[in-house]
Protein backbone atom coordinates (compact mmCIF):
# COMPACT_ATOMS: atom_id res chain seq x y z
CA UNK A 1 0.00 0.00 0.00
CA UNK A 2 2.70 2.50 0.97
CA UNK A 3 4.78 1.84 -2.21
CA UNK A 4 2.10 3.50 -4.29
CA UNK A 5 2.66 6.84 -2.57
CA UNK A 6 6.43 6.85 -2.17
CA UNK A 7 8.42 7.31 -5.36
CA UNK A 8 11.90 5.98 -4.78
CA UNK A 9 14.81 6.96 -7.02
CA UNK A 10 15.83 4.58 -9.82
CA UNK A 11 17.62 1.50 -8.64
CA UNK A 12 17.72 2.57 -5.03
CA UNK A 13 16.43 -0.73 -3.68
CA UNK A 14 18.80 -2.92 -5.67
CA UNK A 15 21.94 -0.93 -5.24
CA UNK A 16 24.54 -2.13 -2.80
CA UNK A 17 26.48 1.06 -2.22
CA UNK A 18 25.65 3.83 0.22
CA UNK A 19 25.31 7.37 -0.95
CA UNK A 20 26.91 9.84 1.38
CA UNK A 21 26.46 13.53 0.90
CA UNK A 22 29.63 15.27 2.09
CA UNK A 23 27.57 18.37 1.83
CA UNK A 24 28.43 21.97 1.25
CA UNK A 25 28.15 22.84 4.92
CA UNK A 26 30.49 20.45 6.62
CA UNK A 27 33.22 21.05 9.16
CA UNK A 28 35.75 19.09 7.14
CA UNK A 29 35.28 20.75 3.78
CA UNK A 30 37.14 24.03 3.78
CA UNK A 31 34.75 26.32 2.11
CA UNK A 32 31.55 25.33 0.40
CA UNK A 33 31.88 22.42 -1.93
CA UNK A 34 29.82 19.30 -2.12
CA UNK A 35 30.83 15.74 -2.74
CA UNK A 36 28.34 12.99 -3.29
CA UNK A 37 30.20 9.80 -2.47
CA UNK A 38 29.16 6.26 -3.26
CA UNK A 39 30.52 4.06 -0.52
CA UNK A 40 30.85 0.32 -0.37
CA UNK A 41 31.16 -0.10 3.37
CA UNK A 42 33.84 2.43 4.01
CA UNK A 43 35.56 2.29 0.61
CA UNK A 44 34.78 4.91 -1.93
CA UNK A 45 33.45 3.65 -5.22
CA UNK A 46 32.83 6.94 -6.92
CA UNK A 47 32.53 10.61 -6.13
CA UNK A 48 30.74 13.45 -7.79
CA UNK A 49 31.64 17.02 -7.05
CA UNK A 50 29.37 20.02 -7.08
CA UNK A 51 30.98 23.42 -7.05
CA UNK A 52 29.57 26.87 -7.52
CA UNK A 53 28.13 27.52 -4.06
CA UNK A 54 30.16 30.69 -3.78
CA UNK A 55 30.10 31.73 -7.42
CA UNK A 56 29.96 35.49 -7.41
CA UNK A 57 30.07 36.26 -11.15
CA UNK A 58 33.45 38.00 -10.96
CA UNK A 59 34.09 37.68 -14.65
CA UNK A 60 30.83 39.41 -15.53
CA UNK A 61 31.29 42.09 -12.88
CA UNK A 62 34.81 42.81 -14.11
CA UNK A 63 33.42 43.78 -17.51
CA UNK A 64 31.74 46.76 -15.87
CA UNK A 65 34.51 47.99 -13.59
CA UNK A 66 37.62 50.10 -14.23
CA UNK A 67 40.90 48.47 -13.39
CA UNK A 68 41.40 49.53 -9.80
CA UNK A 69 37.87 48.48 -8.91
CA UNK A 70 38.67 44.95 -10.01
CA UNK A 71 41.42 44.58 -7.39
CA UNK A 72 38.90 43.94 -4.57
CA UNK A 73 37.41 41.18 -6.74
CA UNK A 74 40.78 39.51 -7.08
CA UNK A 75 41.25 39.65 -3.27
CA UNK A 76 38.36 37.30 -2.92
CA UNK A 77 39.69 34.60 -5.17
CA UNK A 78 42.15 32.80 -2.91
CA UNK A 79 41.29 34.70 0.22
CA UNK A 80 43.97 33.02 2.31
CA UNK A 81 46.71 34.70 0.28
CA UNK A 82 44.99 37.70 -1.24
CA UNK A 83 48.13 39.84 -1.70
CA UNK A 84 49.36 37.37 -4.31
CA UNK A 85 46.11 37.72 -6.25
CA UNK A 86 46.31 41.51 -6.02
CA UNK A 87 49.91 41.59 -7.20
CA UNK A 88 49.08 39.22 -10.03
CA UNK A 89 46.33 41.53 -11.18
CA UNK A 90 48.54 44.60 -10.95
CA UNK A 91 51.27 42.83 -12.90
CA UNK A 92 48.76 41.93 -15.61
CA UNK A 93 47.62 45.54 -15.88
CA UNK A 94 51.21 46.70 -15.97
CA UNK A 95 51.96 44.24 -18.75
CA UNK A 96 49.03 45.57 -20.76
CA UNK A 97 49.94 49.20 -20.14
CA UNK A 98 53.69 48.70 -20.53
CA UNK A 99 54.64 49.98 -17.09
CA UNK A 100 58.11 49.33 -15.64
CA UNK A 101 58.20 49.23 -11.87
CA UNK A 102 61.33 50.35 -10.00
CA UNK A 103 63.41 47.71 -8.22
CA UNK A 104 62.43 48.79 -4.74
CA UNK A 105 58.77 48.28 -5.58
CA UNK A 106 59.58 44.82 -6.92
CA UNK A 107 61.42 43.83 -3.76
CA UNK A 108 58.64 45.11 -1.53
CA UNK A 109 56.17 43.16 -3.63
CA UNK A 110 58.24 40.03 -3.19
CA UNK A 111 58.18 40.48 0.59
CA UNK A 112 54.41 40.80 0.58
CA UNK A 113 53.82 37.91 -1.81
CA UNK A 114 56.07 35.55 0.11
CA UNK A 115 54.42 36.49 3.39
CA UNK A 116 51.09 35.62 1.78
CA UNK A 117 52.49 32.33 0.56
CA UNK A 118 53.67 31.48 4.08
CA UNK A 119 50.26 32.38 5.46
CA UNK A 120 48.44 30.18 2.97
CA UNK A 121 50.75 27.20 3.38
CA UNK A 122 50.49 27.52 7.15
CA UNK A 123 46.73 27.38 6.95
CA UNK A 124 46.82 24.40 4.61
CA UNK A 125 49.35 22.37 6.57
CA UNK A 126 47.82 23.03 9.95
CA UNK A 127 44.38 22.12 8.59
CA UNK A 128 45.79 18.83 7.32
CA UNK A 129 46.85 18.32 10.93
CA UNK A 130 43.41 19.22 12.23
CA UNK A 131 41.72 16.84 9.84
CA UNK A 132 43.91 14.00 11.01
CA UNK A 133 43.07 14.85 14.59
CA UNK A 134 45.96 17.05 15.71
CA UNK A 135 44.57 20.43 16.63
CA UNK A 136 47.57 21.86 18.45
CA UNK A 137 49.63 22.77 15.40
CA UNK A 138 46.84 24.85 13.93
CA UNK A 139 46.29 26.88 17.06
CA UNK A 140 49.96 27.31 17.77
CA UNK A 141 50.87 28.85 14.42
CA UNK A 142 47.80 31.10 14.52
CA UNK A 143 49.91 33.67 16.38
CA UNK A 144 52.24 34.00 13.40
CA UNK A 145 49.42 34.23 10.93
CA UNK A 146 48.19 37.11 13.10
CA UNK A 147 51.60 38.74 12.79
CA UNK A 148 51.45 38.47 9.00
CA UNK A 149 47.99 40.01 9.00
CA UNK A 150 49.29 42.84 11.19
CA UNK A 151 52.03 43.49 8.63
CA UNK A 152 49.41 43.79 5.89
CA UNK A 153 47.39 46.08 8.12
CA UNK A 154 50.30 48.48 8.48
CA UNK A 155 50.56 48.80 4.71
CA UNK A 156 47.04 48.71 3.38
CA UNK A 157 44.71 48.75 6.36
CA UNK A 158 43.07 45.38 5.89
CA UNK A 159 43.97 41.98 7.23
CA UNK A 160 42.44 39.32 5.04
CA UNK A 161 41.09 40.73 1.79
CA UNK A 162 43.83 43.24 1.43
CA UNK A 163 43.33 45.21 -1.84
CA UNK A 164 47.03 45.90 -1.42
CA UNK A 165 49.14 47.78 -3.91
CA UNK A 166 48.26 49.87 -6.90
CA UNK A 167 49.09 49.71 -10.59
CA UNK A 168 52.75 50.72 -10.51
CA UNK A 169 53.50 50.07 -6.87
CA UNK A 170 52.03 50.65 -3.46
CA UNK A 171 49.64 53.15 -2.02
CA UNK A 172 52.07 54.20 0.70
CA UNK A 173 55.63 53.53 1.66
CA UNK A 174 56.24 50.81 4.22
CA UNK A 175 56.59 52.62 7.54
CA UNK A 176 58.94 51.78 10.40
CA UNK A 177 56.32 49.77 12.21
CA UNK A 178 55.87 47.54 9.17
CA UNK A 179 59.61 46.99 8.89
CA UNK A 180 59.89 46.23 12.60
CA UNK A 181 57.11 43.70 12.32
CA UNK A 182 58.80 42.08 9.35
CA UNK A 183 62.02 41.85 11.35
CA UNK A 184 60.12 40.35 14.27
CA UNK A 185 58.61 37.79 11.94
CA UNK A 186 62.00 36.91 10.48
CA UNK A 187 63.44 36.51 13.97
CA UNK A 188 60.73 34.47 15.57
CA UNK A 189 59.14 32.44 12.83
CA UNK A 190 61.96 29.96 12.01
CA UNK A 191 61.80 28.53 15.50
CA UNK A 192 58.03 28.16 15.22
CA UNK A 193 58.22 26.46 11.85
CA UNK A 194 60.82 24.06 13.25
CA UNK A 195 58.53 23.20 16.12
CA UNK A 196 55.58 22.74 13.75
CA UNK A 197 57.67 20.36 11.68
CA UNK A 198 58.67 18.43 14.79
CA UNK A 199 55.01 17.92 15.57
CA UNK A 200 54.15 16.30 12.28
CA UNK A 201 56.98 15.33 9.99
CA UNK A 202 58.23 12.21 11.79
CA UNK A 203 55.03 11.62 13.70
CA UNK A 204 54.07 7.97 13.32
CA UNK A 205 50.33 8.55 13.27
CA UNK A 206 50.53 11.40 10.80
CA UNK A 207 52.78 9.43 8.50
CA UNK A 208 50.44 6.46 8.56
CA UNK A 209 47.51 8.69 7.73
CA UNK A 210 49.16 10.50 4.85
CA UNK A 211 51.79 8.31 3.16
CA UNK A 212 50.39 6.61 0.08
CA UNK A 213 47.09 8.44 0.37
CA UNK A 214 45.79 10.35 -2.62
CA UNK A 215 48.86 9.87 -4.74
CA UNK A 216 49.01 10.90 -8.36
CA UNK A 217 51.63 10.36 -11.01
CA UNK A 218 53.33 13.24 -12.77
CA UNK A 219 51.75 12.40 -16.15
CA UNK A 220 48.24 12.33 -14.77
CA UNK A 221 48.88 15.49 -12.80
CA UNK A 222 50.05 17.34 -15.89
CA UNK A 223 47.09 16.08 -17.87
CA UNK A 224 44.75 17.30 -15.16
CA UNK A 225 46.34 20.74 -15.29
CA UNK A 226 47.86 20.62 -11.81
CA UNK A 227 50.23 23.42 -10.93
CA UNK A 228 51.83 24.62 -7.75
CA UNK A 229 52.73 22.52 -4.70
CA UNK A 230 50.43 19.68 -5.79
CA UNK A 231 52.32 19.29 -9.06
CA UNK A 232 55.69 19.71 -7.42
CA UNK A 233 54.80 16.97 -4.96
CA UNK A 234 54.24 14.69 -7.97
CA UNK A 235 57.75 15.38 -9.20
CA UNK A 236 57.49 18.15 -11.80
CA UNK A 237 59.48 21.24 -10.90
CA UNK A 238 57.29 23.83 -12.59
CA UNK A 239 57.20 27.13 -10.74
CA UNK A 240 56.10 30.31 -12.50
CA UNK A 241 58.54 32.34 -10.42
CA UNK A 242 61.41 30.52 -12.10
CA UNK A 243 59.92 29.73 -15.49
CA UNK A 244 58.82 33.26 -16.30
CA UNK A 245 60.18 35.48 -13.55
CA UNK A 246 58.17 38.54 -12.66
CA UNK A 247 58.70 41.30 -10.15
CA UNK A 248 62.49 40.76 -10.07
CA UNK A 249 62.39 37.18 -8.79
CA UNK A 250 65.36 36.53 -11.04
CA UNK A 251 67.53 38.61 -8.70
CA UNK A 252 67.11 36.06 -5.93
CA UNK A 253 68.29 32.56 -5.32
CA UNK A 254 65.88 30.02 -3.95
CA UNK A 255 65.22 26.31 -4.29
CA UNK A 256 62.12 24.57 -5.52
CA UNK A 257 61.23 21.59 -3.35
CA UNK A 258 60.00 18.62 -5.36
CA UNK A 259 58.40 15.42 -4.13
CA UNK A 260 58.21 11.97 -5.68
CA UNK A 261 54.88 10.22 -5.26
CA UNK A 262 52.43 13.10 -5.12
CA UNK A 263 50.66 11.75 -2.06
CA UNK A 264 49.44 13.81 0.90
CA UNK A 265 52.69 13.42 2.80
CA UNK A 266 54.71 14.76 -0.12
CA UNK A 267 52.35 17.70 -0.48
CA UNK A 268 52.75 18.45 3.22
CA UNK A 269 56.53 18.29 2.99
CA UNK A 270 56.66 20.39 -0.19
CA UNK A 271 54.58 23.10 1.44
CA UNK A 272 56.77 23.10 4.53
CA UNK A 273 59.91 23.39 2.47
CA UNK A 274 58.36 26.17 0.42
CA UNK A 275 57.79 28.06 3.63
CA UNK A 276 61.50 27.81 4.41
CA UNK A 277 62.32 29.04 0.91
CA UNK A 278 59.86 31.89 1.28
CA UNK A 279 61.57 32.89 4.52
CA UNK A 280 64.86 32.93 2.65
CA UNK A 281 63.34 35.12 -0.07
CA UNK A 282 61.85 37.54 2.45
CA UNK A 283 65.17 37.82 4.26
CA UNK A 284 67.08 38.52 1.04
CA UNK A 285 64.49 40.95 -0.27
CA UNK A 286 64.41 42.76 3.07
CA UNK A 287 68.18 43.14 3.02
CA UNK A 288 68.05 44.48 -0.51
CA UNK A 289 65.35 46.97 0.44
CA UNK A 290 67.47 48.18 3.36
CA UNK A 291 70.30 48.90 0.92
CA UNK A 292 68.38 51.66 -0.82
CA UNK A 293 69.47 54.97 0.67
CA UNK A 294 68.44 58.57 0.40
CA UNK A 295 65.90 59.50 -2.23
CA UNK A 296 65.78 55.96 -3.56
CA UNK A 297 64.46 54.73 -0.25
CA UNK A 298 61.34 56.84 -0.73
CA UNK A 299 60.38 55.27 -4.05
CA UNK A 300 57.28 53.15 -3.65
CA UNK A 301 55.54 53.42 -7.00
CA UNK A 302 56.22 53.90 -10.68
CA UNK A 303 55.14 56.98 -12.56
CA UNK A 304 51.79 56.02 -14.03
CA UNK A 305 49.69 59.18 -13.85
CA UNK A 306 46.74 57.61 -15.67
CA UNK A 307 46.19 54.95 -13.07
CA UNK A 308 47.94 55.99 -9.90
CA UNK A 309 46.13 58.55 -7.78
CA UNK A 310 48.31 61.64 -7.21
CA UNK A 311 49.02 62.65 -3.61
CA UNK A 312 46.27 64.77 -2.13
CA UNK A 313 48.42 67.85 -1.51
CA UNK A 314 49.21 67.95 -5.24
CA UNK A 315 45.53 67.59 -6.14
CA UNK A 316 44.74 70.72 -4.18
CA UNK A 317 47.62 72.76 -5.57
CA UNK A 318 48.58 71.57 -9.07
CA UNK A 319 46.39 71.56 -12.17
CA UNK A 320 47.64 68.33 -13.78
CA UNK A 321 47.21 66.40 -10.58
CA UNK A 322 43.67 67.71 -10.25
CA UNK A 323 42.81 66.64 -13.78
CA UNK A 324 44.31 63.18 -13.31
CA UNK A 325 42.52 62.73 -10.01
CA UNK A 326 39.22 63.64 -11.63
CA UNK A 327 39.75 61.38 -14.61
CA UNK A 328 40.80 58.42 -12.50
CA UNK A 329 37.96 58.70 -10.00
CA UNK A 330 35.27 59.28 -12.60
CA UNK A 331 36.62 56.34 -14.57
CA UNK A 332 37.34 58.18 -17.78
CA UNK A 333 40.70 56.68 -18.67
CA UNK A 334 40.81 54.56 -21.79
CA UNK A 335 43.04 51.51 -21.87
CA UNK A 336 45.16 50.54 -24.84
CA UNK A 337 43.49 47.75 -26.84
CA UNK A 338 45.10 44.33 -26.76
CA UNK A 339 44.95 40.92 -25.18
CA UNK A 340 47.33 39.63 -22.59
CA UNK A 341 47.69 36.53 -20.47
CA UNK A 342 49.80 36.90 -17.38
CA UNK A 343 50.29 34.46 -14.56
CA UNK A 344 51.86 34.45 -11.14
CA UNK A 345 52.75 31.65 -8.79
CA UNK A 346 49.88 31.68 -6.36
CA UNK A 347 49.91 29.57 -3.26
CA UNK A 348 47.97 26.88 -5.11
CA UNK A 349 49.61 27.11 -8.46
CA UNK A 350 49.57 29.17 -11.58
CA UNK A 351 47.02 31.94 -11.14
CA UNK A 352 46.44 33.39 -14.57
CA UNK A 353 44.64 36.47 -15.80
CA UNK A 354 43.45 36.54 -19.41
CA UNK A 355 42.59 40.13 -20.16
CA UNK A 356 41.09 41.37 -23.42
CA UNK A 357 40.84 45.11 -23.75
CA UNK A 358 38.97 46.80 -26.58
CA UNK A 359 40.30 50.27 -25.86
CA UNK A 360 37.48 51.20 -23.53
CA UNK A 361 37.41 52.01 -19.85
CA UNK A 362 36.66 48.53 -18.56
CA UNK A 363 37.95 45.14 -19.67
CA UNK A 364 36.12 43.56 -22.59
CA UNK A 365 36.75 40.12 -21.15
CA UNK A 366 38.58 39.11 -18.02
CA UNK A 367 39.04 35.46 -17.26
CA UNK A 368 40.76 34.10 -14.16
CA UNK A 369 42.69 30.89 -14.59
CA UNK A 370 42.07 29.46 -11.16
CA UNK A 371 44.30 26.57 -10.12
CA UNK A 372 41.87 25.15 -7.51
CA UNK A 373 39.06 24.84 -10.03
CA UNK A 374 41.26 22.99 -12.45
CA UNK A 375 42.83 20.48 -10.14
CA UNK A 376 39.71 19.70 -8.14
CA UNK A 377 38.57 17.68 -11.16
CA UNK A 378 41.15 15.06 -10.22
CA UNK A 379 39.62 14.50 -6.79
CA UNK A 380 37.59 11.48 -7.84
CA UNK A 381 40.61 9.76 -9.30
CA UNK A 382 42.63 10.51 -6.18
CA UNK A 383 40.20 8.97 -3.72
CA UNK A 384 38.71 6.09 -5.67
CA UNK A 385 39.23 2.90 -3.72
CA UNK A 386 40.37 4.56 -0.51
CA UNK A 387 38.58 5.04 2.77
CA UNK A 388 36.29 7.88 3.73
CA UNK A 389 38.79 9.30 6.20
CA UNK A 390 41.41 9.38 3.44
CA UNK A 391 39.02 11.41 1.30
CA UNK A 392 38.92 14.09 3.98
CA UNK A 393 42.69 14.23 4.30
CA UNK A 394 43.12 14.40 0.51
CA UNK A 395 40.66 17.25 0.28
CA UNK A 396 42.50 19.31 2.85
CA UNK A 397 45.95 18.50 1.54
CA UNK A 398 44.97 19.69 -1.94
CA UNK A 399 44.36 23.11 -0.38
CA UNK A 400 40.98 23.74 -1.95
CA UNK A 401 39.85 27.28 -1.37
CA UNK A 402 36.22 27.71 -2.38
CA UNK A 403 36.66 31.34 -3.34
CA UNK A 404 39.24 30.46 -5.95
CA UNK A 405 37.28 27.49 -7.19
CA UNK A 406 34.13 29.38 -7.99
CA UNK A 407 35.16 32.99 -8.57
Amino acid sequence: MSEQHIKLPEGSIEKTTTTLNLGPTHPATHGVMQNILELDGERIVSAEQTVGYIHRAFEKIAERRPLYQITPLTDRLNYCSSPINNMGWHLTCEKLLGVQTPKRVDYLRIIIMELARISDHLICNSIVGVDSGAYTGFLYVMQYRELIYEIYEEICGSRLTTNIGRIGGFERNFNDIAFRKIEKFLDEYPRVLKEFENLFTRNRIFMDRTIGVGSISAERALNYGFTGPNLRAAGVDYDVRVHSPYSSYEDFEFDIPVGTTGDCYDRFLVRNQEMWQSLRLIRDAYQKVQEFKGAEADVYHADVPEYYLPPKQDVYTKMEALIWHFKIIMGEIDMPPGEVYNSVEGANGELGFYFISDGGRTPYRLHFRRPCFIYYQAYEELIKGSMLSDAIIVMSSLNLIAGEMDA
Partner: protein
Amino acid sequence: MLSNEHIKQRLIEKFNDQVYGFEEPYGTLTFEAPREMNLKVLNFLYDEEDLKFRFLTDLCGVHFPGQGEKELAVVYHLHNLEDNVRIRFKVFAPLSKPDIYTATGLFSSANWMERETYDFYGINFIGHPNLRRILNVDEMDYFPLLKHYPLEDQSRVDKDDEMFGRGGSIGFGTAKTDHGTVVEAEKHNAGEEKV
Protein backbone atom coordinates in the same frame (compact mmCIF):
# COMPACT_ATOMS: atom_id res chain seq x y z
CA MET B 1 65.13 27.29 -28.80
CA LEU B 2 61.57 27.03 -29.95
CA SER B 3 60.65 30.35 -31.52
CA ASN B 4 57.28 31.72 -32.58
CA GLU B 5 58.51 31.76 -36.19
CA HIS B 6 59.28 28.05 -36.05
CA ILE B 7 55.85 27.20 -34.61
CA LYS B 8 54.18 29.32 -37.26
CA GLN B 9 56.20 27.61 -40.02
CA ARG B 10 55.29 24.15 -38.78
CA LEU B 11 51.62 25.02 -38.53
CA ILE B 12 51.50 26.50 -42.01
CA GLU B 13 53.38 23.50 -43.44
CA LYS B 14 50.90 21.10 -41.92
CA PHE B 15 47.62 22.97 -42.31
CA ASN B 16 48.35 25.41 -45.16
CA ASP B 17 45.73 28.12 -45.17
CA GLN B 18 43.49 26.51 -42.58
CA VAL B 19 45.45 28.30 -39.85
CA TYR B 20 45.39 32.05 -40.14
CA GLY B 21 45.25 35.23 -38.17
CA PHE B 22 48.79 34.97 -36.82
CA GLU B 23 49.58 37.73 -34.36
CA GLU B 24 51.97 38.18 -31.47
CA PRO B 25 50.33 40.39 -28.85
CA TYR B 26 52.78 40.87 -25.97
CA GLY B 27 55.03 38.12 -27.32
CA THR B 28 52.47 35.28 -27.36
CA LEU B 29 51.81 33.71 -30.74
CA THR B 30 48.07 33.76 -31.40
CA PHE B 31 46.30 32.11 -34.31
CA GLU B 32 42.90 30.85 -35.41
CA ALA B 33 41.54 27.84 -37.20
CA PRO B 34 38.08 26.70 -38.32
CA ARG B 35 36.21 25.03 -35.53
CA GLU B 36 36.12 21.61 -37.20
CA MET B 37 39.91 21.56 -37.08
CA ASN B 38 40.36 22.31 -33.40
CA LEU B 39 41.16 18.75 -32.36
CA LYS B 40 43.46 18.22 -35.32
CA VAL B 41 45.46 21.32 -34.42
CA LEU B 42 45.55 20.45 -30.71
CA ASN B 43 46.70 16.91 -31.44
CA PHE B 44 49.35 18.18 -33.82
CA LEU B 45 50.68 20.59 -31.23
CA TYR B 46 50.65 17.81 -28.62
CA ASP B 47 52.27 15.02 -30.59
CA GLU B 48 55.03 16.70 -32.56
CA GLU B 49 58.38 16.24 -30.86
CA ASP B 50 59.60 19.72 -31.64
CA LEU B 51 56.37 21.42 -30.53
CA LYS B 52 55.27 19.47 -27.45
CA PHE B 53 52.44 21.69 -26.23
CA ARG B 54 51.29 19.21 -23.65
CA PHE B 55 49.87 21.43 -20.96
CA LEU B 56 46.51 23.11 -21.31
CA THR B 57 46.80 26.22 -19.22
CA ASP B 58 43.39 27.67 -19.87
CA LEU B 59 40.23 27.28 -21.90
CA CYS B 60 37.68 30.05 -21.96
CA GLY B 61 35.02 31.62 -24.11
CA VAL B 62 34.57 35.15 -25.42
CA HIS B 63 31.52 36.73 -27.01
CA PHE B 64 31.86 39.22 -29.85
CA PRO B 65 28.30 40.30 -30.59
CA GLY B 66 27.35 41.04 -34.15
CA GLN B 67 30.23 39.19 -35.79
CA GLY B 68 28.06 36.54 -37.45
CA GLU B 69 30.16 33.43 -38.01
CA LYS B 70 32.76 34.60 -35.53
CA GLU B 71 30.48 35.54 -32.70
CA LEU B 72 31.49 33.06 -30.01
CA ALA B 73 35.14 32.25 -29.49
CA VAL B 74 36.82 29.48 -27.53
CA VAL B 75 40.38 30.37 -26.60
CA TYR B 76 42.91 27.68 -25.70
CA HIS B 77 46.12 28.66 -23.93
CA LEU B 78 48.76 25.98 -24.36
CA HIS B 79 52.13 25.76 -22.71
CA ASN B 80 55.28 23.88 -23.63
CA LEU B 81 56.80 23.34 -20.21
CA GLU B 82 60.19 22.17 -21.42
CA ASP B 83 61.01 25.07 -23.72
CA ASN B 84 58.79 27.51 -21.82
CA VAL B 85 56.71 28.72 -24.75
CA ARG B 86 53.06 29.69 -24.61
CA ILE B 87 50.65 29.98 -27.50
CA ARG B 88 47.04 30.98 -27.84
CA PHE B 89 44.69 29.21 -30.20
CA LYS B 90 41.20 30.44 -31.00
CA VAL B 91 38.23 28.85 -32.70
CA PHE B 92 35.02 30.64 -33.53
CA ALA B 93 31.40 29.61 -33.85
CA PRO B 94 28.16 31.41 -34.71
CA LEU B 95 25.62 32.00 -31.98
CA SER B 96 22.99 29.97 -33.82
CA LYS B 97 25.09 26.81 -33.92
CA PRO B 98 27.78 26.92 -31.23
CA ASP B 99 29.14 23.37 -31.62
CA ILE B 100 32.79 22.68 -30.95
CA TYR B 101 34.51 19.35 -30.47
CA THR B 102 35.59 18.65 -26.93
CA ALA B 103 39.25 18.51 -25.95
CA THR B 104 38.65 16.20 -22.96
CA GLY B 105 40.05 13.24 -24.85
CA LEU B 106 43.41 14.94 -24.98
CA PHE B 107 43.46 16.99 -21.78
CA SER B 108 41.53 15.87 -18.72
CA SER B 109 41.71 19.41 -17.39
CA ALA B 110 39.44 20.56 -20.22
CA ASN B 111 36.48 18.78 -18.62
CA TRP B 112 35.42 21.40 -16.12
CA MET B 113 36.79 24.30 -18.13
CA GLU B 114 34.45 23.35 -21.00
CA ARG B 115 31.57 22.97 -18.57
CA GLU B 116 32.28 26.48 -17.33
CA THR B 117 32.38 27.80 -20.91
CA TYR B 118 29.08 26.05 -21.63
CA ASP B 119 27.59 27.50 -18.45
CA PHE B 120 28.61 31.04 -19.33
CA TYR B 121 28.21 31.11 -23.12
CA GLY B 122 26.12 28.16 -24.19
CA ILE B 123 28.82 26.63 -26.33
CA ASN B 124 27.96 23.00 -26.97
CA PHE B 125 31.02 20.77 -26.73
CA ILE B 126 30.38 17.69 -28.85
CA GLY B 127 31.47 14.53 -27.12
CA HIS B 128 31.80 15.97 -23.64
CA PRO B 129 31.09 13.28 -21.02
CA ASN B 130 29.08 15.48 -18.68
CA LEU B 131 28.05 18.76 -20.27
CA ARG B 132 25.92 20.50 -17.69
CA ARG B 133 26.15 23.71 -15.73
CA ILE B 134 28.86 23.88 -13.19
CA LEU B 135 28.92 27.25 -11.46
CA ASN B 136 25.37 28.50 -11.92
CA VAL B 137 22.16 26.86 -10.74
CA ASP B 138 20.89 24.07 -12.97
CA GLU B 139 17.55 25.79 -13.44
CA MET B 140 19.05 28.85 -15.09
CA ASP B 141 17.70 29.09 -18.60
CA TYR B 142 20.05 31.58 -20.18
CA PHE B 143 23.80 31.94 -20.61
CA PRO B 144 24.83 34.90 -18.51
CA LEU B 145 28.15 36.08 -19.91
CA LEU B 146 26.72 36.82 -23.35
CA LYS B 147 26.99 40.54 -23.85
CA HIS B 148 23.28 41.21 -24.26
CA TYR B 149 22.47 40.09 -20.75
CA PRO B 150 22.72 42.74 -18.06
CA LEU B 151 24.95 42.30 -15.06
CA GLU B 152 21.97 42.05 -12.77
CA ASP B 153 18.75 40.11 -13.06
CA GLN B 154 16.11 42.55 -14.23
CA SER B 155 13.35 41.08 -12.12
CA ARG B 156 14.18 43.09 -9.00
CA VAL B 157 11.79 45.97 -8.35
CA ASP B 158 13.17 47.10 -5.02
CA LYS B 159 16.16 49.04 -6.31
CA ASP B 160 17.05 51.42 -9.10
CA ASP B 161 20.69 51.77 -10.14
CA GLU B 162 20.05 54.56 -12.62
CA MET B 163 21.96 57.06 -10.47
CA PHE B 164 25.13 54.95 -10.44
CA GLY B 165 26.15 55.95 -13.89
CA ARG B 166 27.30 53.81 -16.81
CA GLY B 167 23.69 53.05 -17.74
CA GLY B 168 22.72 51.54 -14.40
CA SER B 169 21.02 48.24 -14.70
CA ILE B 170 17.63 49.40 -15.97
CA GLY B 171 17.32 49.39 -19.72
CA PHE B 172 20.51 47.44 -20.25
CA GLY B 173 19.57 44.20 -21.91
CA THR B 174 15.93 45.15 -21.90
CA ALA B 175 16.03 46.64 -25.41
CA LYS B 176 12.81 45.91 -27.20
CA THR B 177 12.66 43.63 -30.20
CA ASP B 178 9.64 42.34 -32.12
CA HIS B 179 9.01 39.68 -29.56
CA GLY B 180 9.32 41.73 -26.39
CA THR B 181 12.61 42.20 -24.55
CA VAL B 182 15.80 40.45 -25.63
CA VAL B 183 15.34 37.76 -22.97
CA GLU B 184 11.80 37.04 -24.12
CA ALA B 185 12.89 37.07 -27.74
CA GLU B 186 15.45 34.37 -27.03
CA LYS B 187 12.79 32.19 -25.48
CA HIS B 188 10.52 32.75 -28.46
CA ASN B 189 13.29 31.84 -30.84
CA ALA B 190 13.98 28.71 -28.86
CA GLY B 191 10.37 27.71 -29.43
CA GLU B 192 9.07 28.27 -25.94
CA GLU B 193 5.93 30.14 -25.00
CA LYS B 194 6.10 33.92 -25.09
CA VAL B 195 5.66 35.20 -21.54
